[in-house]
C-alpha cells in the first residue's frame, strides 16, 4: 500500500513539474499558433541562472529572481526576434525558435560547462517532508518530517515495518505547481488583464480595434510563459540534475503533454502532464512482458519464443517510450487532444 502512495506521489510531483513547463508552452502556442521549440531551453536557463544566484544570494532569492530574469529574456526574444519573423508566417517562426534552442544550449555549455553543476536544494528542503509508516499490525500512518528510528524498527521480528520518506523537494515542487496553477487560473479568468489576453489570443484584430496594445499582450504572454519555465527550471534543477541535456530530456515530453492535452488548453495540459507523470512512474514498477501475457492467455511459448528479445521486453523497460506512443495514438484517434477545442 505504501508503495502505491509513494509511487503516486512520485508520479504526481513529476507530472506537476511537467505542467509548470507545458502551461507556458500551451499559452504561447495559443498565441503564436506554432510550438515554441526553445521552451525547454528556457527551463534549462532557469536552472542555470538559479544555480548561479543560489551560490550568491541563496535559494529563496534565486527562486524569485531567476524566473523574472528568464521571463525578461523571453519577452526580449519575442520583441526583438519573433515579432519581426511573425509576418513571414508560421514556418520561419518555428525555425527561429528551433535555432534559438541550439544557441541557448551552446551558450549554456560555454558559460557553465558541459557537465552537470552542483545545484543543491536549501537545507530547509533537504530531508523528508513526511514519512509513511506501514506497520503490519497498526496499518498505515503518517508522520511529518523524518520518522524516529524506533518507529521504523519492529521489536518483534514477526511485525513488518516499512518507512517511506517523501522528499521535501518533491513536496515543494507539488506545492509551487499547484499555487502556480491557481494563480494562473485566477489571472486568466478573474482579472481584466486575463480577459484581454483571452480575447487577444482568439480575436487579435477585434481587441486591437478596441484600443488595446495586442503586440504588448503577446510579449507579456511570452514573457510569463518562459518565466514559468524558468521557475520550473529552478525547482527541477535543484531536485534532479542541472546539466546541458536537461532541456532535451523534458523538451520532447512537454510537446507530448501539449499535444495530448489539446493544443492551447490549460486544463488539458494539466490533465496530460499528471497522466504522463503517473503512467511513467507506475510503468517502471511493472515487470509484465508480452510473453507473460501470452502465457496467461494459455498460449504455450516455445523455447525460441521465450528467448525472443521483443517478447521478453517488460513494461518497465519500455516505460520511456510510453509518452510517445501516447502521442501517436492521440494524433491518430483524437487529433484535437483530450480537452482541446481546435481541429489542427
Amino acid at each position, binding site marked *: 500500500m505504501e*508503495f502505491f502512495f509513494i509511487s503516486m506521489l*512520485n508520479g504526481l510531483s513529476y507530472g506537476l513539474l511537467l505542467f509548470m513547463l507545458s502551461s507556458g508552452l500551451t499559452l504561447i502556442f495559443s498565441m503564436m499558433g506554432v510550438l515554441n521549440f526553445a521552451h525547454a531551453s528556457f527551463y534549462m536557463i532557469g536552472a542555470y541562472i538559479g544555480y548561479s544566484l543560489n551560490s550568491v544570494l541563496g535559494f529563496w532569492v534565486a527562486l524569485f529572481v531567476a524566473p523574472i530574469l528568464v521571463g525578461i529574456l523571453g519577452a526580449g526574444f519575442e520583441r526583438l526576434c519573433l515579432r519581426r519573423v511573425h509576418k513571414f508566417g508560421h514556418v520561419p517562426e518555428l525555425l527561429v525558435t528551433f535555432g534559438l534552442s541550439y544557441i541557448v544550449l551552446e551558450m549554456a555549455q560555454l558559460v557553465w560547462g558541459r*557537465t*552537470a553543476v552542483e545545484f543543491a536544494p536549501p537545507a530547509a528542503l533537504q530531508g523528508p517532508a513526511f514519512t509513511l509508516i506501514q506497520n503490519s499490525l497498526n496499518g498505515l500512518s503518517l508522520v511529518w518530517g523524518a520518522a524516529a528510528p524506533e518507529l521504523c524498527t519492529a521489536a518483534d521480528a514477526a511485525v513488518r515495518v516499512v518507512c517511506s520518506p517523501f522528499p521535501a523537494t518533491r513536496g515543494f515542487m507539488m506545492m509551487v505547481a499547484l499555487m502556480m496553477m491557481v494563480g494562473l487560473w485566477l489571472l486568466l479568468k478573474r482579472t481584466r488583464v486575463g480577459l484581454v489576453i483571452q480575447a487577444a489570443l482568439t480575436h487579435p484584430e477585434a481587441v486591437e480595434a478596441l484600443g488595446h496594445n495586442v503586440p504588448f499582450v503577446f510579449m507579456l504572454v511570452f514573457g510569463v510563459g518562459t518565466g514559468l519555465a524558468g521557475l520550473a527550471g529552478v525547482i527541477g534543477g535543484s531536485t534532479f*540534475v542541472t546539466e546541458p*541535456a536537461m532541456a532535451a530530456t523534458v523538451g520532447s515530453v512537454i510537446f507530448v503533454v501539449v499535444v495530448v492535452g489539446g493544443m492551447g488548453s490549460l486544463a488539458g495540459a494539466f490533465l496530460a502532464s499528471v497522466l504522463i507523470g503517473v503512467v511513467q512512474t507506475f510503468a517502471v514498477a511493472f515487470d509484465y512482458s508480452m510473453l507473460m501475457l501470452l502465457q496467461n492467455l494459455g498460449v504455450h511459448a516455445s523455447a525460441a519464443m521465450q528467448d525472443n528479445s521483443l517478447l521478453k521486453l517488460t513494461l518497465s523497460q519500455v516505460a520511456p517510450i510510453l509518452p510517445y506512443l501516447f502521442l501517436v495514438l492521440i494524433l491518430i484517434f483524437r487529433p484535437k487532444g483530450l480537452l482541446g477545442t481546435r481541429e489542427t
Partner: protein
Amino acid sequence: MKFARNLIATAVLASAALSAFAQAGETVKIALIDPQSGLMGPLGLNQLKTFQFFGETLSKNNPAGVKFEVVGFDNKLSPAESLNALKAAMDQGIRYIAQGNGSSVAGALIDAVNKHNERNPGKEVLFLNYAAVDPDFTNSKCSYWHFRFDADTSMKMEALTTFMKDQPDVKKVYLFNQNYSHGQQVAKFAKENLSRKRPDIQIVGEELHPLAQVRDFAPYIAKIKASGADTVITGNWGSDLALLVKAANEGGYNGKFYTYYTGVTGTPTALGTGGAGRVYQIAYAHYNMGGQMDKWMAEFKKRYNDDMFTGSVIHVYNSLSEAMKKAKSTDPVKVAAALEGLKTNSFNGEVELRKTDHQIQQALYLTVWQKADKKYPYSPENTGMTLAPVKTFESYVSSTPTSCQMKRPG
C-alpha cells in the same frame, strides 16, 4: 677528411646507441576516447586528468625512457562518435588508443581496430582497455590488438559472491543494472555465481534501465523496497550510481549495496554519511593502498582538487613502458608481442597480461563504505568517509578461465 671520418664515426656510434635504446626519447601518443561531456562527463574528465597526470609523472622516469603524451577525444558515450574519434586519432598518427567507459563503446572500437589493422599493415593501432569489463572481450570476441587492464565482470563477480557466500544476512537480492552489454553481463554472472555458491538466496527482482538517461531513480527505489530485497547488486557507474544512491537515501531504503564503482565521481557525495557499513565495492584498488599510491593520490588531489581512482591507468603505462623496453621499439606490432604474458610489479602486487586472452590477472579488494579514521584516512570528495578494505582476493583466486581462441597475425 679527418673531419669527415670523425663525422662518420660519430654517426656510427650514435646509431649503435640508438639501436640499443631505439625507443628512448621517443614520444608515445595515446588517444583517450571517452565521454568528456554530458552526464558521464565528470567521470571521463577525471580519467583524462588521470591519464595526463601519470603520463607526465611516468615520462620523467620509466624503463623504456619514452615520453607519454595524452590526447583527449570526447565520444559523448556513443559508439558512433567513438569511431569518428578513432579515425581522427589515426589521422593524427596516433597508434595507441585508450578507452574505458562503456563496454558498448569498447565493443565497437575492438571491431574497428581489428578491421583497420587487417587492412593497413604497417599502421597498426593497439587498443588499451582500462575499464570496459564485458567478459566477451577476452572470450568470444577476444582480439590480438586488445589488452584489458581492469578485471572483467566474471572475475569481479567471482570475488564478490565469494564474499557474499559468508554473509548470512543476504537473503533476498535485487539485480539493478544498466541495459547494455555490461549491465546484462553483471546480472548474468551474479545469477550464475549465486545459484552455485548460495542456492538459498532468492533473486527477488531484476532491473535493466537505460544507460545514462535516468535522472530520477525514485520510482525504481519504490519498486526495490516493495520487492522486500535486503541486498542490491549493481554494476552501475557514474551518474547512474550516484543518482541511484541519492534516491535510495531519500526514499529510505536501508538494504545493502554491492557495487563495482562506489568510489567513482559523484557517488561518494551522494552517499555521504548515510551509507556507512551498507555499501560495498569490489575493485582492483581502493583509496588506502599505501606506499607510492598514497603519494600519487595526494599529489593528484593537490593538483586537480579531485580524487584519483583509476589505478588501471598505472598498469597501462607500466606495461607499455616495460614492453617497449623489451621490444626496443614503440611500434605497436612489436609492443603487442612484448605485452603478451608480460608481468609487472604494480600497486596491487604482481600483475600479468595473460597471453591466452590479454586479460590482466590481478588482486581484487572488497571494501566497505565507512568513516575515515587513522588507519584508513583517505576521504574521497571530502565526505569524511572512506572505503576500508574488508577482504583481499589474490590474483589466482579471482582468476577465471577463458574460451578465447586468439588469432595472431602472421
